[in-house]
C-alpha cells in the first residue's frame, strides 16, 4: 500500500525515477528532448510521457532513464 503518513497516497509510489522524454514529428527530423517525467517504474513513465507531451502529433516518442544517460561533459566544462 502506498499511502503516506497522512493517509493519502504518496505523490509517487515506490522510488521516484526521472526519465527524459524524446520525440519527433517527422521521420526526417532527429529525436529531440521535449521534457521529462518522474515515475516509479517504466510503465507509469510511458503513460505519463504520452499524457504530458501530447501537444503535437509525434511520429515517434521514447523515454530514457536519466541515470542511463552518459554525459561526456556539461555546460561550463572545457
Amino acid at each position, binding site marked *: 500500500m502506498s499511502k503516506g503518513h497522512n493517509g*493519502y497516497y504518496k*505523490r509517487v509510489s*515506490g522510488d521516484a525515477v526521472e526519465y527524459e522524454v524524446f520525440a519527433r514529428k517527422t521521420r526526417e527530423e532527429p529525436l529531440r528532448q521535449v521534457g521529462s517525467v518522474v*515515475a516509479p*517504474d517504466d*510503465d507509469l513513465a*510511458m503513460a*505519463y510521457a504520452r*499524457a*504530458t507531451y501530447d501537444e503535437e502529433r509525434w511520429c515517434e516518442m521514447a523515454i530514457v532513464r536519466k541515470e542511463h544517460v552518459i554525459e561526456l561533459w556539461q555546460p561550463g566544462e572545457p
Partner: protein
Amino acid sequence: MSLSDLVLSLADNKQMLGLRYAEWATRAPSLEADIAAAAMGLDDLGHSRVLYGCLEPLGADPRGPERESDPAAIRNLAYFDEPWTEWSQFVAANAILDTAFTVVIEACVNGSVEVLRQRLRKMLMEERYHFLHGRSWLRSGIDVEPLHRAWREAIEWFGPPDGETTQLYKDGRLSMGPAELHERLEERLESRAPQMDIDWKHWDAIRRRAKPGAIDERTFSMLRGLEENRFAQAKEA
C-alpha cells in the same frame, strides 16, 4: 440483445469512465497522475463518440427518448453510478474495467463486422497507455473492496456463458465469447479474478449488470448538458 446493444453499452460505459477519470484530473496523487487522468478521460470520451457513431451503420440504433428523462436508461455499470471518493476506486476501474472494455474492443476488431474492424482499431493503441497506467498503480497496492467489485462487474459485463454474447462469438461477429474474454482479461492483468458466484437470474441483459440503480442526478444532468444551464442562470442573476 444485439451487437448494437453491446456497442451502446460499451459507448455508455466509456463515456462514464471518461467522465469519472476527468473528475480526478485535479485530485490524483501527483501532478503527472492528474495529467494522465485528464488525458485518459479525453481518450475515453473520444472513444464513446466513435462508438455512438457506429450505431447507425450497424443498423438498429437502440437509443430511445427515455435516455433524456430516465438515468436508468443509460447503460453504465453500477461502478460508475456515483463519483469515486477514493483513489483505489480510480485505479481498480483503470486497471480492471478499462481493460475489460479493451478486450471487448479487441473481440470487435478481430470479429467479422467491417465497421467495427475499421473504426475501433485505433482505440487499442491509445488504450495501451491506460493499461500501463492502471497496471503500475495496481502493483503499488490498492484496497481490496473496489478491486473485487471491479472484477465482479467486469465478469458480469461480459455476460452469462449461454447468453447472446456467446451467440455473437459463435456467429463470428466477435472473436471472443464471455469465457474467452474472461480468460483474456486475466491474461492481460497477469492475475486471476477472485472467486465469486454470479446470480445470472437477476442480470439485466440490456444494462449488462446485476445491481439495480442508476447514475446520480447531477451526472445525468451533465450528460444532457443541463449543468451548463445552471451556471448560465447564475451569471444572469
